[in-house]
């Protein structure tokens, strides 16, 4: 009985006023209407039927379309203020200053590769302004980490850094050889003057070059510090690792600048070599996904070519 009553009440509620009106009309119930206006005819214009939204500004989202994650949105923001500042100060100002440096002193330099005295020329400045700066611009402000463009630029940059470190080592070796020669009796004092001139040229790190080195070291130190702090604040461990890797890369650049300041000495070469290794390690970690994809593609390409030929 109880169950019947509950079912009846439920049905009455579910049918709502319509049912009540019907019941009233029939005279069975004399319950007051829920809303007196309910029965009043609607005034004014008839509402338009529901139309699908076709407005270009309000697109209906497809079911399979993913919601952009908050974090991804962060990455797509493009280069930050620091990235631009770093590019301007390090890649444009200090690199250009370093390229101009030989022209400031306007003295012939002994080239250990050619074994000749060479007068300063505009080659270095041209290379920096036409190749290095645009390359850094693309690498730092345009291409994303892991993209083919960025990998190619970093590979090029890494090759140059390795070559710099290797040349510094060769300079140190040549310097030691010349110094041994200068102290020996194998050559005359009238020949030693040329040796001493070479030693002086190879050994000297000008004040300007030191200044450029310190500026580069400072910028890299700030960048390293910033990356490590950001890693500490990062939302997830993956992001933190990426920032740590970048911090290590900047530390490497710091060591390279330190090596430039010390010149062709044992500690100078050690700093440059260590710095280059750290930088390369950081670049490999940052681009690991892109590199993996590239390797996979290459393997698949070879496989399909193999299958086409021999399959």
């Amino acid at each position, binding site marked *: 009985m109880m169950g019947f009553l509950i079912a009846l009440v439920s049905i009455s509620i579910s049918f709502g006023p319509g049912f009540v009106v019907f019941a009233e009309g029939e005279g069975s119930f004399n319950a007051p209407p829920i809303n007196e206006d309910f029965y009043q005819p609607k005034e004014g214009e008839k509402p338009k039927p529901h139309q699908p939204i076709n407005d270009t500004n309000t697109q209906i989202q497809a079911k399979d379309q993913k919601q952009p994650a908050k974090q991804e949105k962060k990455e797509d923001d493009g280069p930050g203020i620091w990235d631009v500042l770093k590019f301007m100060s390090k890649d444009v100002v200090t690199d250009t200053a370093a390229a101009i440096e030989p022209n400031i002193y306007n003295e012939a330099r002994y080239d250990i590769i050619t074994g000749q005295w060479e007068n300063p020329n505009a080659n270095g400045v041209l290379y920096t302004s036409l190749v290095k700066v645009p390359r850094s611009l693309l690498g730092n402000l345009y291409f994303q980490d892991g993209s083919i463009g960025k990998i190619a630029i970093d590979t090029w940059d890494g090759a140059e850094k390795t070559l710099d470190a290797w040349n510094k080592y060769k300079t140190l070796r040549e310097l030691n*050889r010349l110094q041994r020669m200068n102290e*020996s*009796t*194998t*050559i*005359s004092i*009238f*020949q030693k003057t040329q040796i001493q001139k070479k030693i002086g040229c190879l050994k000297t790190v000008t004040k300007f070059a030191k200044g450029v080195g310190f500026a580069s070291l400072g910028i890299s130190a700030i960048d390293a510090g910033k990356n490590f702090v950001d890693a500490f604040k990062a939302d997830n461990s993956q992001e933190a690792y990426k920032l740590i890797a970048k911090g290590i890369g900047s530390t490497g650049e710091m060591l390279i600048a330190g090596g430039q300041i010390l010149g062709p000495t044992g500690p100078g070469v050690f700093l440059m070599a260590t710095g280059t290794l750290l930088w390369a390690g950081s670049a490999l970690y940052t681009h690991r996904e892109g590199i993996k994809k590239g390797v996979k593609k290459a393997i698949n390409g070879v496989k399909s070519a193999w299958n086409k030929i021999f399959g």
Partner: protein
Amino acid sequence: MNLEELKINPNPEPPELIKKIARSFVKKGETYNVFPHKIICNYEKYYYVSFYPKEDKLTGILIIHENGNIPHKKNIIEVLDYVATVDAEMENIFIYGSKWSQRPMEIWKKGQSLLKSFSELVHASDDEDLKKGYEVFCSIPQIMFETQDQLKEIVEKAKDLYRELTTDYLMTKEYFEKVDKTHLHMMESMKKQFEVQIETEKERKQFLKRLRKTISLSDIRKWFLYLRLLKFHRWLNADSATKAEYQNFKADVSREKATEQTRKKLIAMIRNPRG
């Protein structure tokens, strides 16, 4: 010091004939170097060639006559002496002499000024030993200034000699003697500087004892100056190692004994036939 700038003419290229002969004496793994200047000995002109496997390791010497003949070893020892001595002595002057001549003189100026402040007191005294001790003490800065000027002159003279050889690149006996004399002069000037410091220790000590007795107890300024002079005296006193070094130096100012072993080694390296 940039010696390259002193050169009147650049190093001449040795004749092909000399190079060819030198090459025929090269042993496996060795390199040769023909010295740029010719050596005139007994009216004959020679070229000096060194052989080495590494830059700092001399292994052989060959002296070739200008006409391509290889003279006997016994006839060319003098040529070796000229070359080895001129090279070593020039280098000694340009490296050590030059550094020595640029030593700061401030300390000696202060010492001289300190001694001057006791001049009246010493001259007013009847103590002859005090006066004698004072003169000895005063001679130290004076000799230092004199010898320092001499050293500067010696370095300048060596530069002139360097220039002289680069005009014609001919090394004669007279040239060798001039270089040797200049070098000896430098060594003697250095010896004087050592001497005046080390060999005046006793006199200085006695002078300071006597001076202490002449200063009035109420003269605080003089006592203060005396303490500074005492400090200067102690600074001048050499330790036993320096004294031993000085004794060696004094016994062989011309460095003949010191270089004798090296000379023997060089003679043994000569590749000219024994004859």
